[in-house]
């Protein structure tokens, strides 16, 4: 049985798709057979971030409607074994997803895969509800600013009331906080909420802190999940996050301003 993880946030543009791509790739790198599903029907992005946009033939909605089977639709990643992408439809809207259809696809994928990552659309409407409904765990992507934190709080409320686990009275969804676009310098200046502030407001466990980094933008533009850029701070932070998701205890990095050495101070850097 696969573990179903939803990557969600409420607010748009905080890094859900970037994080889905990075975490999914990281899980596959660790040897777990992983599929990432793009639930953002009509605003397909995951294929771009994963660099497989030219290989999309069928999509999620085709599978739900029975117009194609999973084997035809899943796109196998060329860089990493064990990694697959189920792209969203670009020509349809979110109403094309039905609970029964999504459940059927998830059940089928569940037989083959270890992890199913659901990349949720922004908002709290049917598309986002569909992405979180069947989840076992949730990665709540949050930027360190008040509007993102409030939207995450809203989504956490949905996770604990509108999901299958909540409706059927099962164990509640395991919630993880992933803080992205973190800039320790701006936190020190008081321009950004700190990790502690966000943790206190949302009161859920922290699974990762991804520093604000040029590497993320570069990676997105070139269709390479940032986790593959192992020299970058963001890539390393995502690797740590994947380890924690797999239950390892890894210390948090990139939380404080890097002290500039003497040479750096003299020669600039």
């Amino acid at each position: 049985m696969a573990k179903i993880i939803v990557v969600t946030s409420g607010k748009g543009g905080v890094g859900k798709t970037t994080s889905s791509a990075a975490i999914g790739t990281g899980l596959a790198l660790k040897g777990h057979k992983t599929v990432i599903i793009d639930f953002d029907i009509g605003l397909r992005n995951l294929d771009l971030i994963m660099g497989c946009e030219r290989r999309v033939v069928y999509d999620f909605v085709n599978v739900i409607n029975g117009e194609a089977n999973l084997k035809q639709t899943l796109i196998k990643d060329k860089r990493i074994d064990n990694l697959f992408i189920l792209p969203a439809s670009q020509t349809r809207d979110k109403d094309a997803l039905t609970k029964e259809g999504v459940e059927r696809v998830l059940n089928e994928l569940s037989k083959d895969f270890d992890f199913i990552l659901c990349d949720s659309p922004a908002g709290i409407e049917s598309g986002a509800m569909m992405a979180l409904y069947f989840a076992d765990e949730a990665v709540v992507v949050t930027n360190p600013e008040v509007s993102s934190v409030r939207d995450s709080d809203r989504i956490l409320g949905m996770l604990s009331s509108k999901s299958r686990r909540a409706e059927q009275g099962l164990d509640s969804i395991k919630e993880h906080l992933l803080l992205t676009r973190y800039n320790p310098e701006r936190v020190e200046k008081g321009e950004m909420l700190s990790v502690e502030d966000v943790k206190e407001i949302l009161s859920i466990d922290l699974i990762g802190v991804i520093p604000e980094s040029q590497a993320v933008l570069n990676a997105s533009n070139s269709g390479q999940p940032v986790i593959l850029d192992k020299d970058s701070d963001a890539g390393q932070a995502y690797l740590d996050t994947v380890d924690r998701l797999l239950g390892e205890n890894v210390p948090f990095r990139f939380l404080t301003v890097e002290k500039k050495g003497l040479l750096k101070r003299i020669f600039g850097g």
Partner: protein
Amino acid sequence: MSDQSLELKGSLFPLSVLSCTDLSLAVVKSQLEHKLAQAPAFFYQAPIVLNLSDSQQTPDFSAIKQLFSQLNLVLVGVCGASSEHKQLAQQAGLAVLQLGKTAKASQAAEPTATAPSRQTSVVTNNVPVPMDSKIVEQTVRSGQQIYAKGADLVIKGTVGAGAEVIADGNIHIYGTLRGKAIAGAAGDSSKRIFCYNLQAELVSIAGNYWLSESLQGNFWGKPACVRLQDDQLVLADLV
């Protein structure tokens, strides 16, 4: 457009019920005076319902009403009355009320020191029954609304910004209150809000409210109790 200037709504009020086995004026007077002497301020102009279920006599309602007003009490009605008594009470301008369950149950007479031999008693007790409590174990998230109808509300977690907790009774929050808390929603101004960390968007008691800007000050981010005093919200220490 509606031009209605009046509105009828049902509502529950706590009323003191007076049970008497002997309804002769002299007995009621002496016993009531004795009772009132114990807590004159508490019963001052208190609305009272007379329980007739223990009494066989036919009382003189208008005389009793007058006696009550002499003693600074307001007799508003009778309960437990026989049909004959009902008619007389209504003629005297008193409301006829249904007897509450608690009033029936507590007929245990408490003979007073003044006239134990005559087996008369004066017992006051409040209806309705004590409020129930609704307990919420987890954090209340943004967008969630919890209403404790006719009850106190106890939140073990935090109330997030954009969340609302509403109770007809008191509200107790053991985490941080960042959202809205509305106590005494049915209009009871004696209700209060207790929280461990006050950072609320809004607090309201019986319709009197303060926004977060009015809450800035000594109690912001600290444990606090909000109550109503002379139609004004007041903040105080939790302990």
